[in-house]
């Protein structure tokens, strides 16, 4: 029997490493394409001038001094959570429990603020809340880490399930502390005494989150790249066998790293409750524990690259409300645009790693 060799219309081939310039150009093309598609969609679906919509997005994020501060504050929280998750990801420990770790941190802070009001000075409440939040977050990270280290349980499932436990725990305490009974709301904690409200730095209530997040980001960059711990994390992430061979205690690294990851998430929870919202609800983390996973991955685990990645998401979120107000568009419309832009940004990585080779017409038939 004669064998026919069929050449497909096109096939994919792994590329050589591209030059920085070429990578850059591919990414620019992706972004322009995403913006064009969004513009087209806006014009077709709503009949509104897309440039005006883009203008509104910027207005929502930077339209006034206050808006700019809030954007920076939101950015700092998302960045903090992303950075917190990163050491776990770097060692290929899929911590998708950021949401829960943030929640228990927030819950611990709320508990300190409610239970210690008028009992000890406000400064001490802050200190106690800080310790409680960090410990609570660390505990929420520790449980799946220990199970992984001891019994090799699946950390993805474990951390995910810890989120649900945290949510239920918060709703339990909301019912205990709610005012008035049955309303499902705690309201602002210590609204008049301000006991346990986190300090304001440089006279601005937005500054604390920004400073904490900046410090943690720099710390994490140094920790991951220039410390022995960071090196161990990298090795465990690259190859468990290599780590074993060079004598790294893998269980210890997993547990230590998740303690750090959880503690930093707990810190984010403390800021959300103690510095920003002054209340606790089951939705206070607002899905940022999951968004942070994407930010961390998009930035390829580089804490500094996470700044623009987190910024993009926060910018679109802040703009979403503005386009809803200005054009009567549902805020979901901004989510659609965010989705398109992210799709193009992540999708263009494919073209950086692979090339498409088309069938040559001459002598193609066989």
């Amino acid at each position, binding site marked *: 029997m004669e064998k026919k060799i069929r050449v497909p219309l096109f096939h994919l081939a792994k590329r050589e490493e591209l030059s920085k310039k070429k990578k*850059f150009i591919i990414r620019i093309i992706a972004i322009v394409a995403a913006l064009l598609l969004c513009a087209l969609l806006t014009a077709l679906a709503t009949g509104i001038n897309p440039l005006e*919509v883009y203008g509104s997005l910027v207005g929502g994020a930077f339209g006034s001094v206050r808006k700019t501060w809030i954007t920076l504050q939101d950015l700092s929280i998302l960045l903090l959570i992303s950075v917190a998750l990163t050491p776990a990801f770097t060692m290929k420990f899929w911590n998708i429990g950021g949401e829960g770790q943030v929640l228990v941190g927030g819950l611990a802070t709320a508990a300190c603020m409610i239970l210690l009001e008028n009992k000890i000075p406000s400064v001490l409440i802050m200190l106690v809340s800080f310790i409680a939040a960090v410990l609570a977050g660390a505990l929420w990270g520790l449980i799946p880490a220990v199970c992984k280290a001891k019994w090799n349980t699946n950390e993805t499932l474990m951390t995910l399930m810890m989120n649900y436990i945290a949510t239920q725990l918060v709703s339990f305490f909301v019912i205990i502390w709610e005012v*008035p009974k049955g309303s499902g*709301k705690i309201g602002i904690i210590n609204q008049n005494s301000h006991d346990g409200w986190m300090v304001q730095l440089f006279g601005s209530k937005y500054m604390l989150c920004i400073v904490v997040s900046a410090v943690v980001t720099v710390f994490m960059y140094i920790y991951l790249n220039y410390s022995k711990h960071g090196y161990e994390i990298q090795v465990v992430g690259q190859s468990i066998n290599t780590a074993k061979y060079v004598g790294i205690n893998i269980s210890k690294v997993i547990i230590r790293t998740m303690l750090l990851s959880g503690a930093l998430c707990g810190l984010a929870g403390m800021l959300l409750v103690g510095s920003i919202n002054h209340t606790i609800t089951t939705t206070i983390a607002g899905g940022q524990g999951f968004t942070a996973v994407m930010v961390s991955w998009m930035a390829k685990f*580089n804490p500094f690259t996470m700044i623009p990645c987190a910024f993009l998401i926060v910018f679109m979120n802040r703009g979403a409300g503005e386009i809803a107000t200005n054009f009567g568009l549902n805020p979901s419309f901004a989510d659609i645009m965010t989705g398109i832009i992210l799709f193009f940004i992540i999708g263009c990585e494919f073209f950086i790693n692979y090339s498409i080779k088309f069938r040559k017409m001459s002598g193609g038939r066989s």
Partner: protein
Amino acid sequence: MKKLVSVLLAAMMALSLCACGASAGSAADGGAKDAGSGASDIKVGFICLHDENSTYDLNFINGAKEACKNLGIEPIIKVNIPEGQECYDAACELADAGCSFIFADSFGHEDYMIEAAKEYPDIQFSHATGTKAHTEGLANYHNAFASIYEGRYLAGIVAGMKLKEMIDAGEITPDQAKIGYVGAFTYAEVISGYTSFFLGARSVVPEATMEVTFTGSWYDETAEKEGATKLIQDGCVLISQHADSMGAPTACENAGVPDVSYNGSTEAACPNTFLVSSRIDWAPYFEYAIKATANKEAYDTDWTGTLETGSVALTDLGKSVADGTKEAVEEAKKKLQDGSLHVFDTSTFTVEGKELTTYMADVDTDPDYKGDHEAIKDGYFNESGEGMRSAPYFDLQIDGISLLDTAF
């Protein structure tokens, strides 16, 4: 990656800067058009928990648009603002944008509105359904509500007439006249609502009973739909609700069970089962408060809309209501207005088998939930009464109503 994103942002900013110029121009045009009419020199802002998909928020948005149209101004409406710091941020952003009257529509917004009110003493802040204005002592912070229990009572009469028709037709026996009710939370606002509805129905069918289920959320379409379905399976022959999605009406339409909705007519989506809907018409309050703000006059710290002010309204009746419903509702409405009928007449209900002669209601909100005001007056429970507060405080469990799923 970093470079990439920064370029992206730079590109977007550049694009939008051009756009900013364009939109600023058109806004200015809009402003010029309005300049002729009455209170048009002031800006007003509205903060809504959800968007127009929630019947509750839609009712506010419609009220705001109507009032602003009458006053010749353009409202700035912010939707999907959660009950957290976002509400404070939104209020402050509206203040920064030059609004002199700012309104928020959800119970959980209250604390954050108070924070904003403290920061901007020259701007008027109003909050619907809240309970704290009368004790907070801020001149620029106001609560508003309406005696919606009267509207619920009238809607209850519509329900009662329907039950009576079903009994007379032999479809159900009088002791099968069980009403189902999907509520959001277990506090006074909801309790007052379902109790007044039930009393209205029972004024027509004395044997009627009611089951109430709770979802633990103001807007959870799935939970509300499931709740209604469960009640129907439990033998409830008529459904009403105090939660804000289309969940319960849809479940009723699917099951062919008559439904009394809330916040506005659901007839378009549920033509076969829709009976009536009670709602608060917010336009009268908005006009009152915005006019006062524009004229720099003080207005009520705690305002209660009534049938007289046009704040308590019933929608048009659905096509499946019983004969004589319209007349029965009109009669009761007249009696409510002339004071010969009280919704919470203590001779019409019992609590743990006993008639109520005294009750200390928790009117001033504090974490102790202690009663602080005597609410029984001249043989009725004085809901949203003079010298009390506009938001409901009737939180008694009366006989004939059983509660399911109170721990949501």
